[in-house]
């Protein structure tokens, strides 16, 4: 049972996953990058991106998922997101104070508008996506380890 789970689910699920994972990832990136124009933002988009990787993890097992995004890469991405967010906040001191919107505002409804909000969204997306996928992986691996011990 445990060995079967490591290899992933049936062929039907794997085929559907191959088709849908890219679309889910693309939708997550869309939600993140258009967070300042339409509903969405870094948190929701980051969770959707994490869900795409969880989808991969459930369908193909942990080996394939780790080939796409390894454990060390996850922690690097999460720390990068947190530091990037803090760095953007500190850049505000150029203009005067913490979290000052120093970048050009641009025209409303354009993709490259709203100054620091787009980079902030991307930083939060990295943090949330990598962090939630790391939590999911840790809990699934813990369950596999517990099942193995019970055997």
């Amino acid at each position: 049972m445990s060995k079967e789970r490591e290899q992933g689910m049936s062929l039907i699920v794997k085929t559907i996953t191959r088709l849908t994972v890219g679309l889910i990832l693309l939708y997550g990136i869309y939600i993140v990058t258009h967070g300042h124009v339409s509903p969405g933002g870094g948190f929701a988009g980051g969770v959707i991106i994490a869900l795409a990787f969880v989808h991969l993890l459930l369908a193909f097992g942990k080996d394939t998922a780790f080939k796409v995004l390894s454990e060390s890469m996850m922690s690097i991405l999460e720390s990068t997101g947190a530091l990037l967010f803090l760095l953007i906040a500190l850049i505000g001191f150029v203009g005067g104070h913490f979290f000052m919107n120093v970048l050009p505002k641009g025209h409303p409804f354009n993709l490259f508008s709203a100054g620091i909000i787009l980079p902030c969204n991307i930083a939060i997306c990295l943090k949330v996506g990598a962090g939630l996928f790391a939590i999911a992986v840790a809990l699934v691996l813990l369950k596999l380890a517990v099942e193995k011990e019970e055997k």
Partner: protein
Amino acid sequence: MLAIYIVLMLMIIGAVIAIEIKSLLSSVIAVGAVGMGLSLIALILNAPDVAITQLVVEIISVIILIRATIKKDLPESTTEQRVMSGVAALVFLAALVLVGIAVFKEIPPFGQPIMRVAGEYLANGVQETGATNIVASILLDYRGYDTLGEATVLFTAVLGVLTVVRRQGKKSEKSGGGSDHE
């Protein structure tokens, strides 16, 4: 308004089912239904940002619950002090209802907020930040400091989970005792 009440009733039913049902999988699914109801309410109240976030967080939490905790047994609650716990629950519930009634008299009626600061944001948000999504402009421009705190909370939570369930510690524990899981 009627739609909100219908969804609220369904959420209460789902919550009761989640508590009372024996099967753990059915309980997790009922909790997921409650979360979906909350997302629907956010959508009915014209808050798509909250609805999207609630929906995706609900999905990932249901997946994690089903994958990670479904095989663990529920701890049986002791039934010895049933009278005392019943009285305590009634007293707590009565206090909660009384405080709730007192609080709800003070807050403005449903759908008519005071809008002191929020009116300012709505009036000047697009010119000052350039973002057409007012939620993003409040979260990441006006209230960026709060979002930094929230990000720190999430970072700490991930750190805590990874520390508790890390495999390095599991291995040394297994070599030491071996009976760490019942």
